[in-house]
């Protein structure tokens, strides 16, 4: 066997790591010894999803494509956190910044990506080398962390740059509670992808979300001595702000290549073989490479480049050539759907321009048709037609004469059929660059469940936007052979039973503690991720008869308060129906002063949150408040918002206050698979937003109440479905309770009501809960009454802690005896 060639890759980002993967999947592990250098101290992560990390929809650990373990498993030597500072092409050596780490190479790949472009302006840096405090760029995981930390506590933030990335940064900042201003040099947003009308439409959508957009503004200086205090613009105006994220474009990282004597223009120049024009052993892929005058800033072209290079390096297809990429993208800008491809303006009067606009709904669609073929398209706000148009664009097919067919799906069926009809080359998962053919192949080649398929192909594991398409293709390809992955039906990951079977087993074998469930139903294997869900379920089944092992609870439920990032806690006393008294307010104010509460805040649920309380102080705070727990820290009944209804409002037709208070007094603190928020509203004007709550009651003319379920106004917005219309408060309470118990018994752990309602369908729920199709209503009613009867205010533990060290963080070293004797006097279980 011949000696393995040594392949060194500079840059451990999306292109570099992808190339090594591509080589390995082509069997290249036998031919090459892999060495990688990465400036960032991590494995390779999905940079696209940084927007999600910043806006809180993704956790940092979830965006890794190749965690460090991957390198180990695949024998890839990774110098993490090592920046390469020079390439010696004569001796074929690369040298890292420490001057010590060096590697020789046979083949060298440069995949250094790009950096944020910093437009010239004053006051960017402090006298030392770094940025002024409060100045950020948005490119890496570390940038994300730094922005998140600085934005804490709700800052006034400016984003310089109204392109795609700038708007993503703006969304992230908005979600972090900042007041956000986008400063853009050009007359409309995202001018690279959009025309003026689309830019204006997008601007309106952004402003509706709360972002303030400033166009035609050139920033000349960042104000502030130690840290950012504002921006100075060329037109003489200024803007006060406490932080600024610069997102004014990117510049390929090419200095290294230039110093090594390689031909560099905007990017490192490569030929159709992805090879540097000056050196047959050096290659460049990704955002740092320039091919045929183009430098690409999106991932799709980069997948095409790595595939060609891998084909050539492994000898699979030594003649493979890269011919440039047709750029098209489908993305979400701050939650607004957008698809763009090709050109955005007609070239001359022969080009046909097809336009549809609906400004109020933020919809804009435009096609450029040239010689009967699609030359470009912009779809904003509604991208249902994007797959079909992308296909027409990629393959250059002749378009139907009736252009309207290109703008609107003719019927639902046509749209639904489309994924299955796509050709094999059509890219489905844009994050991971997975084509339809690969999904079909995996489905036919043994993947029998959607989860197995996604794991095997990585389709759908990025931003998740393509999941439904993947499922559709999978179902069409696998046909009857699909088996569902059973684990998606488990109530908790560590006990292999769906919820109904789990409940049956627990009841039958009288399992009363979390330990007992693990012992009997999970071959004794304790799974920490399953403990809290099991504790909640056991309480649902046995009420006060369950054995309360406190370690099975999340910290919030051990100390009955909500843990904050600095390990202090927030305390929310119950304020029934949002109605309080002067005396109560005084008490709250006194407590806030006495315990140096750092922030007193009105919550969205019509009550007061006292933030920044130490664990040790919790019992005293509760005692001094003299109010019951508001359960704002747990998966339980949270609050029932009310509007003033008939009592004061001139529109009111039902007494929303009295009903709300009655609901909250009855069902306070009941545990659920997830939190449950309620509201009552005195008329359909819906001032308390009852129709977007888990459970709501809406008064309607004629003295009646509509009981609605499954509403949402969080990361997802959903209008609640009508369960039943009733005449009295008692009936409202009754049906709400019945639905609550059903939810307790049928939802997976951490499944919100709205997901369950959508999963089961309102018709079925009406049949079960109103028509009593299954004959279970009487039992449900009895169970929820038992749960209500078993309720004890957890804040009573102020007087009688469950364990002597319940509210202690640090134990003193060896003064054991006093504490021990206390333990023996305590009953083993504090009465629930």
């Amino acid at each position: 066997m011949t000696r393995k060639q040594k392949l060194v890759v500079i840059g451990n980002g999306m292109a570099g790591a992808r190339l090594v993967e591509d080589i390995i999947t082509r069997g290249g592990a036998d031919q090459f010894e892999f060495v990688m250098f990465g400036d960032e101290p991590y494995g390779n992560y999905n940079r696209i999803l940084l927007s999600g990390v910043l806006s809180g929809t993704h956790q940092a650990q979830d965006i890794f494509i190749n965690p460090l373990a991957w390198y180990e498993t695949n024998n890839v030597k990774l110098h993490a956190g090592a920046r390469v500072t020079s390439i010696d092409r004569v001796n074929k050596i690369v040298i890292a910044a420490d001057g010590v780490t060096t590697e020789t190479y046979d083949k060298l790949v440069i995949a250094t990506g790009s950096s944020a472009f910093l437009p010239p302006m004053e006051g960017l840096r402090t006298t030392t080398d770094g940025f002024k405090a409060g100045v950020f760029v948005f490119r890496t995981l570390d940038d994300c962390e730094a922005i998140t930390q600085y934005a804490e506590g709700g800052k006034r933030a400016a984003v310089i740059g109204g392109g795609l990335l700038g708007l993503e940064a703006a969304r992230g900042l908005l979600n972090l509670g900042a007041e956000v201003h986008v400063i853009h040099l050009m007359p409309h947003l995202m001018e690279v992808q959009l025309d003026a009308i689309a830019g204006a439409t997008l601007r309106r959508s952004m402003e509706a979300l709360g972002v303030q957009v400033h166009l035609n503004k050139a920033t000349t200086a960042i104000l502030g001595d130690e840290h950012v205090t504002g921006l100075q613009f060329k037109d003489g105006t200024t803007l006060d702000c406490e932080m600024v994220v610069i997102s004014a474009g990117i510049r390929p990282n090419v200095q290294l290549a230039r110093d090594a004597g390689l031909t560099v223009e905007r990017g490192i120049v490569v030929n159709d073989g992805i090879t540097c024009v000056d050196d047959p052993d050096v290659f460049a892929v990704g955002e740092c490479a320039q091919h045929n005058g183009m430098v690409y800033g999106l991932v799709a072209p980069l997948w095409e480049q790595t595939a060609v290079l891998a084909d050539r390096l492994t000898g699979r297809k030594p003649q493979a050539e890269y011919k440039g990429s047709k750029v098209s993208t489908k993305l979400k800008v701050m939650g607004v759907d957008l698809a763009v491809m090709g050109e955005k303006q007609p070239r001359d009067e022969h080009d046909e321009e097809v336009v549809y606009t609906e400004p109020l709904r933020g919809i804009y669609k435009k096609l450029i048709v040239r010689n009967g073929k699609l030359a470009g398209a912009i779809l904003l706000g509604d991208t249902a037609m994007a797959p079909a148009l992308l296909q027409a664009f990629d393959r250059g097919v002749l378009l139907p004469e009736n252009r309207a067919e290109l703008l609107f799906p003719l019927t639902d069926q046509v749209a639904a059929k489309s994924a299955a009809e796509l050709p094999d080359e059509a890219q489905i998962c844009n994050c991971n660059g997975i084509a339809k053919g690969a999904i079909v192949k995996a489905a036919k080649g043994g993947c029998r469940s959607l989860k197995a398929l996604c794991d095997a192909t990585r389709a759908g594991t990025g931003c998740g936007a393509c999941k439904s398409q993947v499922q559709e293709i999978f179902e069409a390809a696998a046909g009857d052979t699909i088996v569902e992955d059973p684990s998606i039906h488990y109530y908790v990951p560590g006990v292999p039973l769906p919820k109904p079977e789990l409940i049956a087993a627990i009841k039958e074998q009288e399992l009363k503690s979390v330990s007992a469930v693990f012992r009997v139903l999970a071959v004794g294997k304790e799974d920490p991720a399953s403990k809290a869900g099991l504790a909640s379920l056991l309480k649902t089944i046995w009420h006060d008869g369950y054995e309360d092992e406190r370690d099975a609870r999340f910290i919030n439920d051990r100390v009955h308060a909500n843990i904050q990032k600095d390990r202090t806690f927030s305390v929310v006393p119950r304020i029934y129906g949002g109605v309080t008294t002067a005396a109560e307010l005084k008490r709250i104010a006194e407590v806030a002063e006495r315990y140096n509460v750092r922030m007193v805040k009105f919550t969205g649920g019509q009550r007061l949150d006292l933030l920044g309380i130490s664990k040790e102080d919790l019992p005293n705070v509760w005692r001094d408040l003299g109010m019951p727990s508001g359960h704002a820290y747990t998966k339980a009944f949270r609050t029932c918002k009310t509007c003033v209804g008939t009592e004061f409002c001139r529109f009111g037709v039902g007494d929303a206050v009295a009903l709300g208070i009655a609901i909250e007094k009855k069902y306070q603190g009941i545990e659920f698979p997830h939190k449950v928020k309620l509201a009552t509203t005195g008329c359909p004007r819906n001032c308390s937003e009852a129709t977007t709550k888990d459970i709501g009651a809406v008064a309607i003319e004629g003295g009646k109440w509509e009981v609605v379920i499954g509403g949402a106004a969080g990361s997802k917005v959903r209008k609640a479905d009508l369960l039943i219309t009733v005449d009295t408060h008692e009936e409202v309470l009754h049906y709400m309770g019945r639905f609550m118990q059903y939810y307790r018994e049928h939802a997976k752990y951490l499944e919100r009501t709205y997901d369950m309602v959508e999963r089961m369908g309102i018709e079925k729920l009406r049949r079960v809960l109103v028509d009593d199709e299954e004959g279970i209503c009487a039992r449900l009613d009895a169970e929820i009454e038992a749960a209500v009867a078993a309720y004890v205010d957890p804040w009573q533990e102020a007087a009688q802690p469950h364990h002597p060290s319940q509210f202690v963080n640090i134990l003193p070293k060896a003064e054991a005896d006093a504490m021990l004797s206390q333990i023996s006097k305590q009953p083993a279980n504090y009465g629930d």
Partner: protein
Amino acid sequence: MSTTTTTTTKLVPTDLHFNLGALARIPPGEGKEFEIAGELIAVFRLRDGRVYAVQAKCPHREGALADGITGGGTVVCPMHSFKFDLATGAPLGHDCAALRTYAVSVNAVGEIILQL
């Protein structure tokens, strides 16, 4: 993410033994912190009887590991749910640095003895 890629770094072994008092002061299955020689250490009392001591703060963003949920010889940080092996300190399923671990045992009268 932590910004370093260190693995378990044990302190230089010494003969210092600390009596941390009765194990019963830690509720079963939970952890509590101790301040020893200027260091904050979390001691866990697992339900199966094993006792472990590791650095108190999560290498990710300094979450208090003692407030985490334990099980199967691991602890899950209460802040962002990163999991660590208590015996070795190794990160499980993520990229953070490993935890420092400390030798710990329980003596005949049920007291925790920690060795630095």
